[in-house]
């Protein structure tokens, strides 16, 4: 077990003008035993960053420490890590048992008996002890996944690295394995880096998220912190499904004139906005409410474009009546509420749930409010991370 320190790490592919920056000056402290999830869209550099920690890629600049050792010059075999690959990378010509014992044979001087014992106990932990004599080709996707995890566990490494390990599984199995990996990580208490583009996995699995985009660090924080206190518009839009709705607008007096509606800024918002002129208003679909008729005068009129019934809830795609272009936003409503396409409704945006972002930089300038209890709970979460 070990902490990991990533110091000003940059990775460029190619040379000169044609070089691509995959990881841009990222610094990060990962505590011993922590479950860290690297999350971002494809091309965000999350896999590259993990491969640098693994030693499969060499950073162009910066330092990596695992435990107290500087590992810049060490190959993967000297770093005492175990990795689970997206395609599992099981050795096709070896049985499950040989797959699992390969690492121990290569990297330790354990006796054959000790290795067998370690493999058996890891196989039992992963519930694959009846598959030990099978070749990977004979296994189902889910079983291969378990073998890949078992192969990592048996090594008893300092660090687990998992590169999108669940993305080849079907939805049901993925949900199961998510829980299982969480449980394993809790039991084994090994520092774990987990790469995913799936925001559900990110939200449910990590102690902390590392949100990346275009190789740049966007935010590091607990899942709820990133969700409720996004550092910028990218994080706000990336986490949460469906995504947060964004409305661009200009400030005139105390009012944000967005495309389709006007929004009165509260005093707190106004002081946060200062002299900025162009803003983006962000609000999550579950925070907006639909009314059949205008009540308070704060609502604006919209037309239902598409309804996606999910059962207990429905996602309603709407277009503001006076909106100039074909842009829709999403509102979550009760699944039992009768609503149909083409219907006119009134949308309410509650002041307390609104995020404001700087239109140019994307930086958050105003965070939504939370209930007192939730606010305190979030503070509690954030504190030990500081």
């Amino acid at each position, binding site marked *: 077990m070990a902490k990991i320190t990533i110091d000003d790490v940059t990775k460029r592919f190619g040379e000169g003008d044609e070089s691509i920056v995959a990881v841009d000056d990222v610094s990060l402290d990962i505590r011993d035993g922590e479950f860290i999830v690297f999350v971002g869209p494809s091309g965000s550099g999350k896999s590259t960053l993990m491969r640098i920690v693994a030693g499969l890629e060499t950073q162009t600049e910066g330092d990596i420490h695992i435990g107290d050792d500087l590992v810049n010059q060490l*190959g993967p075999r000297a770093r005492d890590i175990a990795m689970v690959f997206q395609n599992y990378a099981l*050795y096709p010509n070896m049985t499950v048992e040989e797959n699992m014992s*390969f690492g121990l044979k290569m*990297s*330790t001087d354990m006796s054959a008996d000790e290795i067998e014992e370690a493999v058996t106990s890891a196989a039992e932990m992963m519930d694959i002890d009846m598959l030990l004599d099978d070749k990977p080709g004979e296994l189902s996707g889910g079983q291969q996944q378990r073998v890949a995890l078992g192969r990592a566990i048996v090594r008893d490494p300092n660090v687990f690295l998992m590169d999108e390990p669940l993305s080849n599984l079907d939805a049901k199995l993925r949900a199961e394995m998510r829980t299982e990996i969480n449980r394993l990580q809790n039991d084994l208490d090994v520092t774990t880096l987990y790469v995913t583009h799936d925001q559900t996995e990110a939200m449910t699995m990590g102690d902390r998220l590392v949100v990346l985009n275009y190789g740049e660090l966007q935010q590091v924080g607990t899942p709820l912190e990133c969700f409720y206190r996004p550092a910028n518009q990218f994080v706000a839009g990336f986490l949460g499904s469906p995504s947060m709705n964004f409305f661009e607008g200009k400030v005139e007096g105390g009012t944000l004139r967005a495309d389709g509606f006007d929004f009165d800024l509260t005093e707190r918002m106004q002081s946060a906005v200062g002299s900025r002129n162009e803003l983006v208003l962000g609000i999550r679909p579950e925070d907006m409410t639909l009314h059949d008729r205008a009540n308070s005068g704060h609502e604006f009129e919209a037309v239902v474009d598409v309804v996606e019934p999910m059962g207990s809830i429905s996602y309603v795609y709407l277009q503001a009546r006076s909106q100039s272009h074909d842009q829709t936003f999403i509102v979550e409503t009760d699944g039992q509420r009768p609503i149909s396409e083409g219907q006119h409704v009134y949308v309410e945006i509650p002041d307390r749930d609104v995020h404001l972002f700087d239109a140019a930089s994307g930086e958050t300038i105003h965070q939504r409010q939370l209930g007192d209890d939730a606010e305190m709970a979030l503070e509690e979460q954030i504190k030990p991370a500081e």
Partner: protein
Amino acid sequence: MATTDSDSATASQRLDKDTREKLVTVVRHTILLTWSFIVLFPLYWLASMSLKPPGTANSLPPDWIFLPTVYNYIQLIQDSGFVAAFANSLVMVSASVVLVLLIGVPAAYVLSRYDIPMERDVLVWILSSRMLPPIAVVLPFFIIFRELNLFDTRVGMVLMYVSINLSLVVWVMKAFFDGIPETLEEAARVDGATQFQGFRKVVLPAAKPGIFSVAIISFIFAWIELLFGLVLTSFEAVPVTLFVYSFIGSRSIEWGMLAAASTAMIVPVVIFLIAVNKYLAAGLSFGVVIKE
């Protein structure tokens, strides 16, 4: 009444379907049997010719019913020239297959895994060794071999066979390695293997079907080679193909002996094929089309 009608209609349709399926099966088998006959008849002809007594081998109309004799084979085995040529070929061709794999497989691996400058050009350059018809290069080869004292030597013939097969091995094996995910080696390295151990213990076993496929094809191409053997050997390093060819004399053709020697030539290839058969299916289905 109406129900009975529709019932009988369905029944007759079902019957039709059954008959149709049977008919399709019959036609399919007929076609396959005909094709098998077309393919196997020359082999039967060759084998039956080799078992006929001298003088009757190519009599017309052919003797469909005859008393088989191994006379030709006994003659063949007693001919020290044939035994020497057969042994020559066996040794030279086997050695060339081992050598071409030792050179070609690592080369293909490097071309597949590393960023080689002008990789495409290197590959085409390797292939270009087979772009000229053999007859166009046989004389230059003769001169080179004579200068290097390789003329009529087994070493020379082994090198010759390697040059014939190297491009095939490199191209096919590169495609094969391309199909083996790189994460396998990365997993091995994370597991504590060196890069070479990763190649030897993980990639090479995974590439076995491909290696056996190119081995058998290289063996066949070298085994049936005649032209270079004809020009580049005279006595010491004569391959079996050349010996078989020698039964076609200027005045007469010894049909029985020719057939017996040809049949004997097929044996090693068949043995090799049976030995590596279980690896072959996977190798040939890798999407690489091989043509000579």
